[in-house]
């Protein structure tokens, strides 16, 4: 069953159609990749799902909830959280504070309780800190909770961002280029990590990926988008053989060359 369904979604920026009548399904429990050349509309589509952009036409359903017109915080509370292509942590907050902010959809106690120091509030905070520490350990950052996010190494920042997204207990996790800026060894680790996420936490993962090797190895299904429109959909094998995909990436005439050479199309 599809956890996320997009029906004929269109997003225009002035005269430019960034996403064009986009139909798309994400089956529950799967890892799905959205790939496409630069400027194809992948991140715009993410922004439409998370409510950052309102879109002009179509509908997006998540677990039978219509997402149209919902603000980002309400989308997060429904169970969709995300990471960003260029890491966007709260750089001057500590690692654990970042995760605590990510936990917002779980937290209920208001500000009056905080002023009078109610027991319920203190218990909730203590529980949240405990949970945040558990998440830190889960992403391999045990003991780094008090470091400022900006002082963490790059790879750790990526993992912290994922931990922050997980803190909201999402049922759908959107990862925008989780391996951007990583060397091949780190990328392989990240692939393992993402697969682990799905298997252990049983959440559905939708990711944007530029690194073809990563996208092919991690995804159960891929959707290729170009100029805002879907041009192909299928398993990694099907996508690799699809001439329209190769054309979109390398231009007309390159199709034959790439189809036989699947060794390292990294960086395409």
């Amino acid at each position, binding site marked *: 069953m599809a956890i996320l369904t997009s029906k004929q979604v269109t997003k225009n920026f002035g005269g430019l159609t960034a996403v064009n009548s986009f139909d798309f399904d994400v089956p529950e429990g799967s890892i799905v990749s959205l790939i496409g050349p630069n400027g194809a509309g992948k991140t715009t589509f993410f922004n439409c799902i998370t409510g950052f952009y309102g879109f002009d036409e179509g509908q997006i359903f998540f677990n039978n909830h219509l997402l149209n017109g919902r*603000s*980002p*915080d309400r989308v997060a509370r429904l169970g969709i959280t995300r990471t960003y292509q260029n890491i966007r942590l*709260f750089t001057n907050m500590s690692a654990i504070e970042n995760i605590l*902010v990510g936990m917002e959809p779980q937290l209920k106690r208001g500000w009056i309780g905080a002023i009078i120091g109610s027991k319920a509030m203190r218990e909730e905070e203590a529980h*949240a800190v405990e949970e945040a520490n558990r998440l830190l350990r889960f992403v391999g950052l045990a003991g780094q909770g*008090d470091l400022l996010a900006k*002082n963490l190494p790059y790879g750790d920042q990526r993992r912290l961002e994922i931990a922050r997204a997980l803190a909201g207990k999402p049922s759908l996790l959107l990862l925008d280029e989780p391996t951007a800026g990583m060397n091949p060894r780190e990328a392989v680790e990240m692939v393992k990590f993402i697969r682990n996420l799905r298997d252990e936490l049983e959440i559905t993962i939708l990711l944007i990926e530029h690194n073809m090797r990563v996208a092919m190895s991690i995804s159960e299904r891929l959707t290729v988008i170009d100029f805002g429109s879907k041009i192909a959909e299928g398993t990694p094998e099907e996508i690799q053989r699809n001439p329209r995909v190769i054309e979109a990436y390398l231009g007309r005439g390159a199709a034959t060359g790439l189809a036989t050479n699947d060794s390292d199309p990294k960086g395409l």
Partner: protein
Amino acid sequence: MTMETETRFNWGEIVRLGLLAAVIALSLNLIGLVGTFAGRDIIGGMVSVGHVFLFGAALGCGYIAAQRFSGGGAGNTLLGGLVIGLLSSLPLVVLVLIAEPLNLRQFMPYVSPALLEMLTFGQGQALGSLILIVVASVLGLIGAGIPLLPSRVRQPLIWGLAAVFLIGLLAEVIILAWGNQGLGLAIRRFVFAARGLSILGASLVFLIVVGLSAWWNSRGEGIKARVNALPPERQRNLRWGGIGLGILLLLFLPMFLRTYLTEVIDNVGLFILMGLGLNIVVGFAGMLNLGYVAFFAIGAYTMALLTPSEYGVAGLSFWTALPFSVLAAVLMGLILVIPVLKMRGDYLAIVTLGFGEIIRILVLSDFLAPWIGGAQGILKIPNVSVAGMELVKPEHLYYVILAGCLLALFVSWRLRDARLGRQWRALREDEDVAEAMGINLVKTKLLAFAIGAAFAGMSGAIFASKLGSIFPHSFNLMVSINVLCLIIVGGIGSLPGVVVGALFLVGLPELLREFAEYRMLMYGALLIVMMVARPEGLWPSEVMKRELRAGSEEPLPAGFVVSSAER
């Protein structure tokens, strides 16, 4: 200029700093700062604040030079400081020589005989000029020498000098508050001269502070470590004990301070209350609000209208009207938030600026004059009264203001360490991401504005009752700017910083009559110096310290977050 030329010793740079010092010293003379403050002695009959302005540039530029050329060798550095001091005195010598022949006083009113007398140390033109040159040169040399000292010597020295300066500056005020009988009088006669500290008193203060500072330097870390090693239960007791002691001290403060000083503290308190409110909006949530005075005005006018004043409509008592004043300010805060929800940074600042002006012009307008008095203001606002007793004296009102400040401090402190404070910090860092993480922006911003407005409304209400009359011109833009300045100088987002900033920017100018004329100049200069030398503020918050200590790999104090959750 590259880093390399900065560290290498360079005579061109020395001359430039010398000329800079000369320009500063000369202009402080010509605008009258040196002359005006010549009467305020720090050490009676010897050193006045005027002298500090006169030679501060030489000292400061010498210090800067020595810091900049830290690799240049001690001999060169000291010589450089000497040259800077010498250069800084030259235009003053010229001033001394030409002032009378050219009758400069005609168009430079501050070049008075008294000033010339001060510049020449009362020794006549020739000898006096020589002394001036020598003193300036030596001070330049001393300024250059300070950074050369090892920090365990330098720090106590600077603290000692700062203490002498501050106590000398406030000598008049301290004498005013000092006991007048027996031992108190004897000590006072010993420590203070007719104006400023006595020489003995100054040496005593200097030695005590140097000693304390040196002792803290050698033992402070050990003591801190010992306190940190205590079980959390004991630590908490210690902290509460400290807070309790502080509050006890505050309760007895008016008895030491007497009426005049308590009046000053009352005014500081009203600004602390406003500062705490603006600190929530600007410091915690990162939204620049330049129209903050509007909430203060609404609090004041609501108080005036609800009590039996000239234009009063309800005839309530202060205590019944107070919640309504706060509520009115909060409502205004909520109304203001609606148009600015989508705005950030500069745009927000401009809109709030306009809002503040709208409120001021409204209360000033003829249109509303039949109800709120227009430019004539509202008179006959009744005093605060408790159990039938009217609180007229500043000593009594002090407790009302203190209660307000403590309440605001408590609320700010609790919220800062709670979920809402974290939401505000996230908002300040990255609004879009904060929203994507599930933070309701509307609610979070609304709360920041409402709580900030509530404190200002309370401050305004007390202000109206305290003065007994209010006028539109009390609510101009400068109040907003003052409050903003005091939280910046104190340290944005820092609660003790608000208190320190208010004491510094509101209390000090009230105590130093000479300031009145130069208040705005001092503000500007102080802000520039602060932003260059200590951008995190006098008493910075943990957050700002972390932010400005760029790239340091130091972890936070252990359990920074965990402990905040426990509290």
